[in-house]
């Protein structure tokens, strides 16, 4: 799960990573008050940063440096409520509801990078450090891989002093700055382990003129599977950052991802759902969504899933592909019939049922009088849906 920069900074602060004091504001009024206070307390420059779940905010106009209250007001007016659009947000962009206001006069000597990620290949947390901070780490990884030092940490015995020394050395730090960096790496690792992060990043990690290190930007992704032991972290979720349909789906334990096409898909199992999308695409169509109803699908969840699918106005045809195992096809059929009763079913429907109780399911659908096409195989079903979507 993604969280906001300011939330990430708060988590990091709890693990001893130095961050700047900041104010959070979700209105012009509180923003101006905060900026006024900061200027009054002697700050010469402030940075106003849009809080949305996306990187690249600067280039997209989501970050402003202001030198007085008039500039601050202008920037707040522009950023609060803007739709921040870039490659990461997709064309619809992200609505900015909150800004972070922070001292902009830290006296940057050098910009560094520190991050940690769960490496699926090595099956270890890998700490990354680079003396070239402030730029996209993936670009650095591609253009100048030697500029990035990596250390894979064994869960037991954990992060070791000699590994920290190696990372610190690669950042080109000595003396107090090196000791400060040690605390940053230790804090980053501890946070990663104790909070079940999947990724955490400080970019840039700034060395100030007076030799201090400060995390200027922070990114943390959390493992939702571990929320059972972190009830407080669960609260960091900001559903505003998700599409309405995705929130609706997750409330019903459905995995739904909105895509750009026009064929709505309902499938059980993530792998089969992806394969269904792929097959649609092979036949020249485009899926409107990924939707996995999961192993626990019953009449109720299928009904909800169906409603979510149809709520997407770009959907021109619906393809249901269920391979019954734990999920019983007759129950799925039941859910479809129920949903068709509840909502106006105005778009063509293709259903393919296989596995447990497939025959019974098909019977139910036929009896229901619903207008639909059936197919025996996935390939056939996909072909049919593509044809209907184009025709529709």
């Amino acid at each position, binding site marked *: 799960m993604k969280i906001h920069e300011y939330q990430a900074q708060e988590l990091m602060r709890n693990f001893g990573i130095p961050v700047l004091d900041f104010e959070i504001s979700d209105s012009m009024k509180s923003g101006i008050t905060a900026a006024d206070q900061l200027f009054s307390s002697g700050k010469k420059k402030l940075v106003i940063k849009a809080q949305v779940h996306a990187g690249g905010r600067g280039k997209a106009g989501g970050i402003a440096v202001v030198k007085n209250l008039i500039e601050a007001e202008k920037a707040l007016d522009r950023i609060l409520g803007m739709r921040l659009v870039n490659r*990461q947000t997709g064309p619809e962009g992200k609505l900015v509801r909150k800004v972070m206001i922070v001292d902009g006069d830290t006296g940057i000597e050098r910009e560094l990078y520190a991050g940690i990620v*769960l490496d*699926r*290949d090595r*099956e*270890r*947390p890998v700490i990354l450090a680079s003396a070239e901070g402030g730029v996209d780490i*993936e670009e650095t*990884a591609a253009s100048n891989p030697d500029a990035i030092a990596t250390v894979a940490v*064994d*869960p*037991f015995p954990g992060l070791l002093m000699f590994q920290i020394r190696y990372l610190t050395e690669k950042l080109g730090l000595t003396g107090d700055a090196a000791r400060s960096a040690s605390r940053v790496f230790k804090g980053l690792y501890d946070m990663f*382990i104790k909070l*079940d992060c*999947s990724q955490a990043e400080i970019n840039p990690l700034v060395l100030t003129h007076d030799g201090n290190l400060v995390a200027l930007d922070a990114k943390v992704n959390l*493992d939702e*599977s*571990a929320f*059972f*032991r972190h009830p407080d972290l669960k609260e960091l979720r900001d559903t505003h950052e998700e599409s309405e349909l995705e929130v609706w789906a997750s409330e019903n334990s459905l*995995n739904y*991802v909105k*895509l750009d096409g026009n064929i709505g898909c309902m*499938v*059980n*199992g*993530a*792998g*089969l*759902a*992806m*394969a269904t*999308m*792929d*097959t*649609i*695409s*092979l036949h020249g169509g*485009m*899926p409107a969504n*990924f939707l*996995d109803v*999961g*192993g626990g699908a019953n009449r109720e969840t299928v009904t909800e899933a169906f409603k979510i699918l149809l709520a997407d106005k770009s959907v021109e045809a619906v393809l249901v592909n269920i*391979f*019954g*195992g*734990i999920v019983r096809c007759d129950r799925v059929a039941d859910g479809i019939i129920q949903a068709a009763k509840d909502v106006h079913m105005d778009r063509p429907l293709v259903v393919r049922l*296989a*596995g*447990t109780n497939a025959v019974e399911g098909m019977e139910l659908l036929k009896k229901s009088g619903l207008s639909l096409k059936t197919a025996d*195989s*996935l*390939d*056939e079903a996909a072909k049919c849906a593509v044809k209907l979507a184009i025709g529709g």
Partner: protein
Amino acid sequence: MGVLIDKNTKVVVQGITGGEGAFHTERMLEYGTRIVAGVTPGKGGTECKKVPVFNSVESAVKETAADTSVIFVPPHFATDAIYEAAYAGIKLIVCITEGIPALDMMRVKQQLKSMGVRLIGPNCPGIITPGQCKIGIMPSEIHNPGRIGIVSRSGTLTYEVIHQVTAVNMGQSTAIGIGGDPIPGMDFVDCLELFQKDSETDAVIMIGEIGGNSEEKAADYVKNNMTKPVIGFVAGKTAPPGKRMGHAGAIISGGQGTAADKISKMKKAGIIVVENLGFVGKTLVNTLEQ
């Protein structure tokens, strides 16, 4: 004969008295699996589906000589259940549970490795040697005893493929669902190794998906070590980068682990990659006829 499990495998079900546990215990018993014990702390001494229930895996193993465990307990007890099985001397653990934190799996895997214990899953349908032993939640009726090994990161996608294999009148030696989590117990390479060695397996179907690099590692292994034909499929060609598609494993980030990358690497390794899922059965027939 297949790999890892057969008609002599003695299974203990951890979490047998839970809804999922009880339901699938019944299905497994119907299939003929030798389920010798169940474990639910606090319910020792009772029975569930006529299987004796114990308070701990240790006592279950002591009383019944169970050698394999299948886990149906909720995610936040599942890690402990895996450890409990391993410490009790179980050498093959099948963990069905979905939603175990990735860092728990990282720790579990380091420990199991040092103990010489095999783990299938978590978040997987299980393993089946058709006609002999089914340990998991897959629908029984689609399977057919035969000579094709199946290994897959996905559940229902595997059923689809198995269904096609059976439909072309072939069968499976063993089908292993290794699960879709970022850090699975056994991986493709572990399973391919077993199938390559197994005298009852003629060919292998390997079903991958986007994310991670286990398909790439498998390709390396196939290239260097396998003489049996391998047919491959990768789901997620149309998945947009950076989005999580259900499985924790199915996420592409930073341009790595795309379907295109995987397919290209697999083809270079001599794996016969099927582009359209619907043609796995036919491709298998063509391959074995050559």
